[in-house]
């Protein structure tokens, strides 16, 4: 078991309501700290699980069960050059070299705010590239891909479809109640 930290960003519930916290608590989020900032509900999880996938998928399902609308999971998919530096523990100069192609080939192209001096990249693409270039360990690269995939689902599915897709992703572990285990055969 490992503890995973991540944030589920949500909307759709009134933070002033008397039952605001109890909805989350009763859905199973007693390992999360709830806050309300910039008009968004932030559910900060410290979740013990066998895998990041199990931790994030179960957490998103619980936030949905609490009655909130899930907006995304952070660490965010869109990252600036500075974010890339922090996440991969690399200097700004090193990343500038990768982007310019003076070290390594075919660094991913930015996907947003292209015409500004602070363009954004997809972290899942950058993490994959950095891992291939031996600048990021396999675990971090796999995390990026997983969070990216879950955020794609959140962006493109309504709540019911999202629930089903997440339940299908839920890894079967020895901790699951017997009724949740698929029949082997």
């Amino acid at each position: 078991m490992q503890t995973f930290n991540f944030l589920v960003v949500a909307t759709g519930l009134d933070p002033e309501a008397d039952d605001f916290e109890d909805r989350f608590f009763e859905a199973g989020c007693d390992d999360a700290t709830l806050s309300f900032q910039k008009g968004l509900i932030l559910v900060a999880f410290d979740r013990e699980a066998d895998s990041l996938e199990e931790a994030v998928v179960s957490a998103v399902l619980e936030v949905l069960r609490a009655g909130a609308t899930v907006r995304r999971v952070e660490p965010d998919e869109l990252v600036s050059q500075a974010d890339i530096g922090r996440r991969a523990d690399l200097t700004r100069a090193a990343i500038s070299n990768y982007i310019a192609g003076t070290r390594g080939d075919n660094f991913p192209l930015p996907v947003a705010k292209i015409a500004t001096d602070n363009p954004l990249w997809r972290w899942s693409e950058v993490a994959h590239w950095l891992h291939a270039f031996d600048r990021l360990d396999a675990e971090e690269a796999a995390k990026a891909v997983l969070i990216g995939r879950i955020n794609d689902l959140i962006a493109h599915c309504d709540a019911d479809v999202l629930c089903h897709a997440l339940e299908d992703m839920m890894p079967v572990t020895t901790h699951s109640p017997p009724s949740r285990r698929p029949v082997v055969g």
Partner: protein
Amino acid sequence: MARPRHSKKEVEAAVVYAEARGWRWRKGEGHCWGRLKCTRPDRQGCQISVNSTPRNAVNHARAIVRAVDHCWHGDEELCDADI
């Protein structure tokens, strides 16, 4: 009404940390021991919910401190006060 102490010392320390930065405490309902509100009084202000029985008091306390540090409303006021 005076604020009661939180039964977990780590969480109590995090609440004291917030109060030292101008956050106010309000009694909560049900599983919520209290709500911390930042210095900005309207709905744009930040709120942190403090659990009565967090699964892990150390993690909960750390997350409270992190959320306090992410609030920029106190800085706004400090800047105004400096001028």
